[in-house]
C-alpha cells in the first residue's frame, strides 16, 4: 500500500511548503528527508502525522484518504508513530506506562511492553520516571513508545538532535535494527549529512519548502555542496569493506579498490564522501605519487569556472574533481579523454552504513 502525499501549507512568516512524495507502507525502508533547518521538513512530517492541517492538497491512502478536500482523518486514527526531537515522554508516567500508552488494555499489553524493554535495552528502568533518565535512554523510550502499537509508518523528527555526540552515535548505530525488527517503514528528518548517509535507503532533499531531489542518498549528494558557501563539492558512493590494515580500510566499489582512513567500528558497508578538491588528474599512464588511490576514468563533463575547472568523471561511478583551469589546459584535457584520477586517502570520509542497507 502506498501513501501519497501532495500538500501545501503556508505559515504567516514562513516559506510556502509545497511537497509531494510517496511512501511504500508494505516494505521496510528508511526515507530520509534531508535539508537545511527552516526548509519545512518538520512541517511536512507534522502534516503527514495529522498534527498540522494542510491548506490544500491530498494525503491519499488506499481504503481511506487521510486528507482530501475538507475531510481529514484526525491524528489519533492514522496509526502513525511519531518521535519528537526531545522525546516528549509523559513526565507523570513510568517508563513502562509510557511504553504502554498507545496499547489497549488486555493480555497483549504486558507482553509487548516486556518485549520492547528487552529490545531497546531498557531493562531495570521500567519503573523510573522520564526525569530520571539520561538523554539517550529517553530517546530509546520515545522510539519504543512510538513503535509499540505497531503503526503503519513511523516518523522521526531529528531524533538525535538533543543528544550529545557519543549517545547520538550509539543510538544511530542501533536505530536501523530497532526499526527493522517490526518491519515498520520510517521517514527520518535530518539536516545532518552523516546521519542521512548512514541510515537512509532513499533520500528526499528539501529546499525552501519543496522537495528538489529524490533518489539513493549517494546519488542525491554527489555533486552537491559539502558545506554552504564553499566551492568544493563531493562525490558520494556506496562501498563494501574488503579489508582493513594499519588504520586504513580497503573498500570495493564495483570492480575498483579504494583506500581510506578507518573511522573504527564494526561495519561491512560504508558510504564514501570524496571531496572534489582532493582528486587530481593525470594522463592515463601517470606515474604514482603519494596518492594511494589511482582510478582509471573517462571525462564526461568539463566546466571552467574562472580559475577553477570542475571535471566530472566516470570511473565506474561518478566522481568529481576540482582542479585549476591552468592544469586542465596544460594536460590538454577534454570531454571523452581517458585519465587517471588520483584520490588522496585523506580526502575520503567514510560513513559506516549500519545493517544491510
Amino acid at each position, binding site marked *: 500500500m502506498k501513501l501519497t502525499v501532495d500538500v501545501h501549507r503556508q505559515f504567516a512568516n514562513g516559506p510556502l511548503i509545497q511537497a509531494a512524495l510517496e511512501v511504500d507502507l508494505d516494505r521496510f525502508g528508511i526515507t530520509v528527508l534531508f535539508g537545511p533547518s527552516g526548509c519545512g521538513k518538520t512541517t511536512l512530517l507534522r502534516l503527514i*502525522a*495529522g*498534527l498540522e492541517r494542510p491548506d490544500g492538497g491530498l494525503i491519499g491512502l488506499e481504503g481511506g484518504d487521510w486528507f482530501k478536500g475538507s475531510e481529514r482523518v*484526525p*491524528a*489519533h*486514527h*492514522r*496509526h*502513525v*508513530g*511519531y518521535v*519528537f526531537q*526531545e522525546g*516528549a*515522554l*509523559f*513526565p*507523570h508516567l513510568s517508563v513502562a506506562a509510557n511504553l504502554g*500508552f*498507545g496499547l489497549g488494555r488486555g493480555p497483549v499489553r504486558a507482553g509487548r511492553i516486556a518485549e520492547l524493554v528487552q529490545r531497546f535495552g531498557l531493562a531495570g528502568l521500567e519503573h523510573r520516571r522520564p526525569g530520571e533518565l539520561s538523554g539517550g535512554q529517553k530517546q530509546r523510550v520515545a522510539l519504543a*513508545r*512510538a513503535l509499540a*502499537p505497531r503503526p503503519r509508518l513511523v516518523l522521526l523528527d531529528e531524533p538525535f538532535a538533543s543528544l550529545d555526540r557519543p549517545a547520538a552515535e550509539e543510538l544511530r548505530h542501533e536505530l536501523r535494527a530497532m526499526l527493522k525488527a517490526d518491519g515498520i517503514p520510517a521517514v527520518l528528518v535530518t539536516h545532518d549529512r552523516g546521519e542521512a548517509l548512514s541510515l537512509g535507503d532513499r533520500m528526499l532533499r528539501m529546499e525552501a519548502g519543496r522537495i528538489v531531489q529524490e533518489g539513493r542518498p549517494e546519488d542525491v549528494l554527489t555533486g552537491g555542496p559539502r558545506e554552504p558557501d564553499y566551492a568544493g563539492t563531493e562525490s558520494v558512493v556506496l562501498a563494501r569493506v574488503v579489508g582493513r590494515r594499519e588504520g586504513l580500510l580497503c573498500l570495493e566499489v564495483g570492480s575498483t579498490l579504494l583506500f581510506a582512513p578507518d573511522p573504527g567500528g564494526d561495519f561491512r558497508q560504508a558510504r564514501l564522501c570524496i571531496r572534489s578538491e582532493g582528486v587530481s588528474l593525470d594522463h592515463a599512464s601517470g606515474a604514482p605519487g603519494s596518492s594511494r588511490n589511482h582510478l582509471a576514468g573517462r571525462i564526461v563533463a568539463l566546466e571552467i569556472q574562472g580559475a577553477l575547472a570542475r571535471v566530472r568523471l566516470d570511473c565506474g561511478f561518478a566522481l568529481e574533481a576540482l582542479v585549476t583551469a591552468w592544469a586542465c589546459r596544460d594536460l590538454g584535457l577534454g570531454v571523452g579523454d581517458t585519465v587517471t584520477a588520483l584520490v588522496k586517502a585523506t580526502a575520503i570520509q567514510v560513513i559506516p552504513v549500519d545493517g544491510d542497507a
Partner: protein
Amino acid sequence: MNPAAPWMDWSAAALSVRLALSAVALLTPLGIALAWPLAYGRFRGKVVLEAALLMPLVLPPTVLGFYLLQSFGPRSPLGQAWGFLTGGTLVFSFSGLLIATLLINLPFFLQPLVASLGGVDRRLLEASSTLGHGRISTYLRVALPLSWRGLLAGAILAFAHGMGEFGVVLMVGGNLPGRTRTLSIALFDQVQAFDMEAAHRTAFALLAFAFLVLLSTAWLRAREPR
C-alpha cells in the same frame, strides 16, 4: 461577655463548611468539563464564554444574588420546576444557597486550572494523539494529571471563598439559624447585636482560615515545574 451566647456559633460554622465542601464537590466535575474548552478550544464566542464565567469576580455579589433570587422565586420557571421535582423551594434553602455558591465560585475554581492546563507542553498532547488517543482521552490522561496543582489550587480557593461569601448568601438564603446562616452572616449579626467579643472570635477564625488557604495555594504554585 454575654453568658448565654456560645463561644462560637457552631451551627453557622458547620453550615459554612458543609456549604463550601458541597460546592467544591459539585464544582470539580463541572469545572473540569468547562476548563477544557477554555484552555484548548478554538471556537466562536470563546471570549464571551470567558467573560461570562469570570463575571462573578467583578459583579457586586448582591447583584448576582438579586438575579438569582428572581430566577429562584416560586413563580419563576426554575423555581416551579424545582418545586415540582423536589417539593421544596430554592429561595431561603440550602439547595438555593448551594447553587448560588457554585456560580459565584466558578471563576475561582477555573482560573488556576485553566492556567495550569495552558502551561502543559503541547507536544505531550500531540504525542498522545499520535498514540491513538482522542481529545477527551488525551485531556483526562495527560493534560489533567499534569495540571493537578492547578486543580487543587482551584478547589482550595473555591472552598475558601465559599466559606466566607456574604452578599449572595444573604440575598438568596436570608438569615435562618441552622439553615442558611453562615459564619460571615453570623458575624454580621454579632456586630449588629454589639456582641464584639463573639464578633472578634468569628472574624479572627475567618481571617486565620483565609490566610492558611492562600499560603497553601501559593506553596502549590511555587512548586509547579516550568
